[in-house]
Every structure is written in C-alpha cells, then in structure tokens.
C-alpha cells in the first residue's frame, strides 16, 4: 500500500494492482472518503472518484474483507468433508436486522454456526448470542450444504 500526503486536503492511500491500475481512497481532512480507480491508458488520471459516506465505506470494506476470511476458514476445514464456509450478507429487509443473533436460532434449527460477523470493515469473531445483527452485516457461516441453505433462508426471511 502506498500513502501520499495531499497538503491542505488530506491523504491518499492506494494499491497498485497486477494490471497496473491504481485503486484506493482519498481521505479528506473532514473525514470524507472518496473511492478512486485509475485509468488503464493513463495511470496518472482517474477513471472514477466516488464519494462514500462513512457507512458506505465500512460496508464496502466488509464486502471486500469477507472472502479472505472465508478462504482462510475453508482451508482450515479442508480435512472435514461436507463442511463448507460461506458468507451471507444480511439484507435490509431481513427479519433479524436489529435483533439479536440468538433470536434466529440458526444452530439449533440448521446445525450451521455463525463463526464471525464482518461489520463496518471489521471482523467480530465468535459473536455471542446476545450480539445485535444489523442490516448490511456480512455473516460468516460454517456448516453442511443443507445447513447453509437453510440458514441463508432463515436469515433473509424466505
């Protein structure tokens, strides 16, 4: 990761991808964040710079960070056939948004367990049953195929 100070404005943090494209953020002094993506033909310039609210930036962070955690857990469970790790984003209309994790009774009814919650760019490992679920949380669930399908259906209310 590269960090470049922008005097009088803030700071830019970015990553140069294998394709040569730069992807990163500009953080303004007042905390505003902009997502930037550079052009391929002119890597000095930006194809897009998208202002993000604090909430949007955090959600995007969870979405990007989730797969890595899943890959890590899958690697650990490789020895156990039939067990998979999956990430399930909690939609806005989920019946459990705003309620505690225990209310969903995932473990007792499906056998799958929620091992982590990715929220606001951070990972909450081993969430307690009392933990409140929020819309746009990404839940990391471990279980069998059937268990995962049932858990997804319960969480997103279908």
């Amino acid at each position, binding site marked *: 990761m590269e960090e*470049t*100070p*922008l*005097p*009088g*404005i803030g700071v*830019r943090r*970015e990553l140069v991808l294998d394709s040569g494209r*730069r992807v*990163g953020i*500009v953080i303004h*002094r*007042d905390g505003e964040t*902009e997502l*930037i993506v*550079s*052009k*391929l*033909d*002119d*890597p*000095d*310039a*930006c*194809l*897009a*710079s998208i202002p993000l609210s604090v909430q949007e930036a955090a959600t995007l962070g969870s979405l990007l960070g989730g797969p890595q955690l899943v890959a890590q857990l899958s690697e650990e469970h490789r020895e156990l056939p039939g067990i998979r790790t999956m990430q399930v984003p909690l939609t806005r209309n989920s019946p459990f948004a705003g309620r505690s994790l225990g209310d969903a009774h995932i473990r007792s009814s499906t056998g799958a367990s929620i091992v982590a919650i990715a929220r606001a760019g951070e990972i909450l490992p081993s969430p307690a049953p009392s933990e409140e679920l929020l819309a746009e949380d990404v839940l990391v669930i471990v279980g069998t195929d059937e268990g995962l399908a049932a858990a997804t259906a319960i969480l997103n209310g279908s």
Partner: protein
Amino acid sequence: MGGTTVALLELGIIFLGLGLLGRIAARMGMSPVPLYLLGGLAFGHGGLIEFGGIAEFGHIASEIGVVLLLLMLGLEYTAKELVTGLGQSWPAGLADLVLSFTPGAVMALMFGWGGVGAMVLGGVTYISSSGIAAKVLTDLGRLGNRETPTVLSILVLEDLAMAVYLPILTAVLAGASFLGGLQAVGISLLVVSAVLLLALRHGHRISSWIHSPDQETFLLRLIGAALLVAGIASTLQVSAAVGSFLLGIAISGSTAENAVRVLEPLRDVFAAMFFVVFGLNTDPATIPPVLGWAVLLALATAATKMATGSWAARRSGIGRWGQLRAGTTLIARGEFSIVIAGLAVASGAIDGQLAALVTAYVMLTAVAGPVVARFAEPLVRRLVREPEIAR
C-alpha cells in the same frame, strides 16, 4: 439621512448584490472573486453609482478580510506539511518563482513603475490561487490523480513564500532603504523559522490554549488571537497578514478543523468586503487602456505556469497528459494577487494604473484558468488524434 443610515443602506445593497453574484458564480462553477471585483467596480468611484458612505467601515473590514484569508490559509496546512514540502519540492518552487515572477516584474519596469513596482507586479503574477486550484482539483475529480501531489506541493511553497515576501514588500512599500529591506528579510526569515519550529514542537499547546468546548468562546478567542497577532506583526513591520498566517500554521489538529468550521462564514463576509473595496477604489475608466497589457501578461504567465507545472510533474515521473493537467491547474490567480496589489495601492507608493492592470489580470486568469484546466486535455487529445479511452 445621517452617515450611519447611509452606510447601512449602502452595505445592505452591496451584500445583497454580492449574494446575487455569488449565486451566479456557483451556478457557473467559477470562483466568485472576479465577480466581487466587478461588483466593486460598479459601485465605486467612476462606476454606475458611487457609494461613499462606507469608506471607513470598508477600510477596516477589508483589513480584517485579509487577516482572516491568511489565517484560514495557515489553518489549511500543518507545519510538518510545509517543512516536508520545502525539503522535497524546492527545485520546482524555485523554477516557479523565477519563471512567473519575471513577466510581472518586466512589465512593471516597462510601465516605469521602478523597482518597487516590479516587486509588486512580480508577486501578483507569481502567486497562483490555491483556493481556485483546490476547487478545480475537487470539481474535476482529480484528487486521486498522480500529478495532484505535485500541484499541491507547488501551491504550498508559494503560500510559504508569501510569509517571506509580504514582510519584505511591506518594508519596501514603506520606503525602506536597501539595508532596511535586508533587515526585513532577516527578521521575517527568523520569525517564520521560529514559528515553524514552535508549531512543530509545541503546536498542540497553542491549540489547547485557544481551544474551548464552547463555540462562542472559541470563536472570540480565535478572532482575538488573530487580530492581536496581526497587530503585533504590523508593529514589528512584518505585515499583519503574515502574522495571522503563521498563527494559522501553529494551530493544528482538531482545533484547526473546528477553527476552519467556525471561521468560514466570517471569512466569506470580510474577504468579500475586501475584494469589493479593492474594486471600489479602482476607477473602471482606467481599465480599458491597460486591458491589452493585462491579456498579454495573462498569456505570458499562463505559459510560464504551464511550463513550471509540466516540468515539476515530469520530474515526479508523470506522463505527458498528467504534465498538461498539472500545468493548467496553476494558471488561475486570485485572492493573494489582490492582497498584494491592495497593499501597494494602500501605501500610495505605486501608480494608480497598477490597480486597474491587476484587476483586469486577476479577472482574466481567475475566469480562464479553470476553463483551460478543464478543456486543455480533451482539446489537445483531439488535435493529436489520440482519443481518451474510458477504461
């Protein structure tokens, strides 16, 4: 009608007019400064209507406007940014100074304004508007571009150079001898270094002293400190504006952020007044004779700024389109060119034509600069038949 009544009426009309002009500027996405100058021209000596009742208030309000402009500029930067900027980009800063100071200085000599005039007009053409440049970079979505830090570091150096330039100018305008000028240089360099050092080591202490959780107390302390420091600096012949700039640098962290927030509306009112008063004191009839010269000066200094920006960008390994963008962003001159000319006009040491030339010059570059920054790349790409690929 009494004097106060007339002044209130005139001020009311002026501020309403400025509100209207500001709205037009915002609609067109341009800096309001040229329109404020235009407003001042319309209501001043030789304009549409002559407003004479606000001379006293206008004078002191525009002084406060300059103090607040420079205080806010200082608040934008931290001492660390200035010191690192100085260490990394001084070659670009030096090229900028030589290339863009010269055209103004040469033209002043041609007009027969002598060494003092050269010093003033050189400063006017040297200093790009960091306010307009920052707005252009934000509006065009160029904050993530790789050439942007180069552009910003040039602007930082120019603003820092003002801290040394303004005290010298003040001394020269006051009719100081060569030795007196040298003394001013010495004092200002010493003061600037001392303040930078103080701000680096003890910035948090100055900040915590000014800070107050109560917004009203905070605002009063801030204004009080700014005016007091400006007054002391003025007494020491270091220029009031520089005093408040240095105070702004010394205030850091969250205090600086809060200060920017509470001061912004006040700055807008008093700075607008400053631009209007500058326009009021300029007779519009003096502009047409110097308009051709202003255009010539604008073209010459646009070229030198583009050369500086491109060269600095090339040094940082930026491609040719980035070099073009960096150069064009620096073209606009604005608030600080008027601050410099205002000092010169107030001292009475310079021919009245200077105000007319600077007014026309700043209006031209402040309006054309952002337009060139926006359209230079697509235009040149079309000319060389190398269309932009959006991916």
